[in-house]
């Protein structure tokens, strides 16, 4: 200690506080990681002993069979969300970052749109599912099918993609922008060749996070996609789609143990899917950062 402490007990109190603080932070870290580890191990230990590879190749029949329909359905939903929400979200992010720059004098239209986007991202998913059911499934007579599910899921994840695109674009150094303008590049060209390339890690992270969110949703899909034993077809309406979260939600308290195993298997598959998406985003970020300047190491 370089300062002259005013009183002896004060220093001791500060030391005790310091020790408690260090201890408390480690305890907090353990409290964050331990239940999660318990959860993951719990799912693995319930699913792995009864795992059969036929689960991936057999569709569900009642409360037994396999999960092929659910796996393909989840992948199809993710692909659809990537296309719809990905394009809309990236474009929205581009608008907020580049094309509607906040003026120094006060708020721009951008902040209003940003607020709306953040409010939508915090919206309860069951309410969105209900609106999808009332307006699209029943109202427009689409029935439980792919299109209402994709529209509602996209609504949920567009704010995340827009936000990550915007923040990724904002982190591109201004020199790049100015250089592009100095060279006379059109906005579109500059965006494609310069800005988006540098912002790609952030954008891809946002996209993959959005896919993980979409794949893990249950409530909105219950009321838009329905459920079916059949494998997904190409039709957008009138044919329900299966998805992995359904067996987890409904099969765990069915009486048959086969149903329980399917429930745990679906949970395991979901966790693997989320892990793959997040690891992929990390790899992409690391690989692209190797070529860019200003690595965070």
């Amino acid at each position, binding site marked *: 200690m*370089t*300062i002259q402490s005013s009183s002896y007990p004060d220093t001791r109190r*500060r030391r005790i*506080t310091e020790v408690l*603080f*260090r201890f408390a*932070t480690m305890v907090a*870290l353990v*409290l*964050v*990681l331990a*239940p*999660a580890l*318990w*959860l993951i191990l*719990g799912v693995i230990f319930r699913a792995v002993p009864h795992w059969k590879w036929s689960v991936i190749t057999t569709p569900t029949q009642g409360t037994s069979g396999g999960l092929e329909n659910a796996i393909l359905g989840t992948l199809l939903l993710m692909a659809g969300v990537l296309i719809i929400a990905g394009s*809309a979200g990236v*474009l*929205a992010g581009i*608008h907020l970052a*580049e*094309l*509607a720059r906040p003026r120094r004098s006060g708020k721009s239209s*951008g902040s209003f*749109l940003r*607020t709306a*986007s*953040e*409010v*939508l991202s915090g*919206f*309860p*998913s069951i*309410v969105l599912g*209900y*609106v999808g*059911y*009332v*307006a699209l499934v029943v109202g427009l007579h689409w029935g439980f099918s792919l299109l209402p599910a994709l529209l509602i899921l996209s*609504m949920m994840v567009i704010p995340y993609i*827009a936000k990550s695109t915007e923040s990724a674009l904002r982190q591109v150094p201004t020199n790049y922008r100015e250089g592009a303008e100095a*060279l006379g590049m*059109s*906005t*579109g*060209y500059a*965006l494609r060749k310069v800005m988006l390339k540098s912002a790609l890690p952030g954008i891809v992270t946002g996209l993959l996070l959005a896919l993980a969110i979409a794949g*893990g*949703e*249950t*409530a909105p899909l*219950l009321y838009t996609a329905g459920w079916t034993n059949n494998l997904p077809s190409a039709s957008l309406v009138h044919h329900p789609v299966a998805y992995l979260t359904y067996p*987890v*939600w409904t099969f*765990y308290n069915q009486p048959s143990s086969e149903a329980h195993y399917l429930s745990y298997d679906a*949970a395991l598959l979901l*966790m693997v899917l*989320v*892990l793959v998406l*997040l690891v992929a985003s990390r790899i992409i970020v690391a690989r692209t950062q190797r070529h860019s300047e200003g690595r965070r190491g």
Partner: protein
Amino acid sequence: MAIVAGSTGLPASPPASGVHPIRRSSLAWRIGGAIRANEEQAWRWSARVASLIPLGALAFVLTVLAVKAWPAIKVNGVGFLTSSSWKPGNTYGATVHTDGVAHPLGASYGAWPMIAGTLQTSAIAVALAVPISIGAAFALTERLPRWLSQPLGFAIEVLAGIPSVIIGLWGVLTLGPFLSKHVYPIVADQMPDVPVLRYFRNPTGHGEGLLTSGIVLALMIVPIIASTTRDLFLQVPPLPKEGAEALGMTDAEVARRVTVPWVRAGIIGATVLGLGRALGETIAVAMISGSILGSVAPNIYGTMTTIAATIVTQLDSAATDGTGFATATLAEAGLLLAVISVVVNLIARGIVVRTSRLGAPVGRA
């Protein structure tokens, strides 16, 4: 200049002798210019439309909700927010009309237990999650070596992606029974019979209830707050922290007086993100809350329900009320939840903007 010309597809014909390269084909130049201008317009226009999608979606959702809920709003009135009954009425009996709205005889809905349940579980979740997340973020950024904190940080981000239905499943099968057998009885037996702590006394139930739901929700929002806070802490410039250390402050004091105030806006933003998730969380709470409509939990272990969980368990069967009144009431509950979520979000943005020197949330929040 030649680069620009090539990018818009001008013909690469050799220059005519004596003519300036740019003016070699004024038609091609005009076409190129038109393409460039249109491309610019196309980008601007499509980006603007895309940025309006969240606003349009929000307006659409609120409109549909309001339209569907209107009959119920008329009949239920303000009492919806304060009354505690959830009576669908005699759906197999006569239909009566109030204010021009048809509903079964004896139908009377009050959402107070749901509102209380929503606020209580979210409050517990935030109260547990925020200190733990901040502490964990400190541990990650200050205490641990880089080779350990990076993978652990990544692990926390993976946790944020675990679907809520899996967390709910684990809560029902593992955590709830564990807590009710090993933790709650010990806590409940030690509690004296004084006003606030009375809430923690027996009966401890069977694992499904308010406290378990709050704990499960906390587990869900901790990764969001913790990873955002960790990113924020990494962005705090080292100079103020080193200066504080040079003045002789302990790590705890540096944390309290320098680091946290620097990123307070971001932490609040992340907390609100977590709060928003907790308010709207449906599936996990539906599995672990005990699903009791019509009464507030008598003590902290008691069974209850939240607005979101009620909607998901009652929606399918609400349509059996042939008058449509039950569905309209659930729409009203959904509208209420939407309004609560919007208000919370706006308040938080207001706090963030007001307390932040930089004018915008820092970090990934």
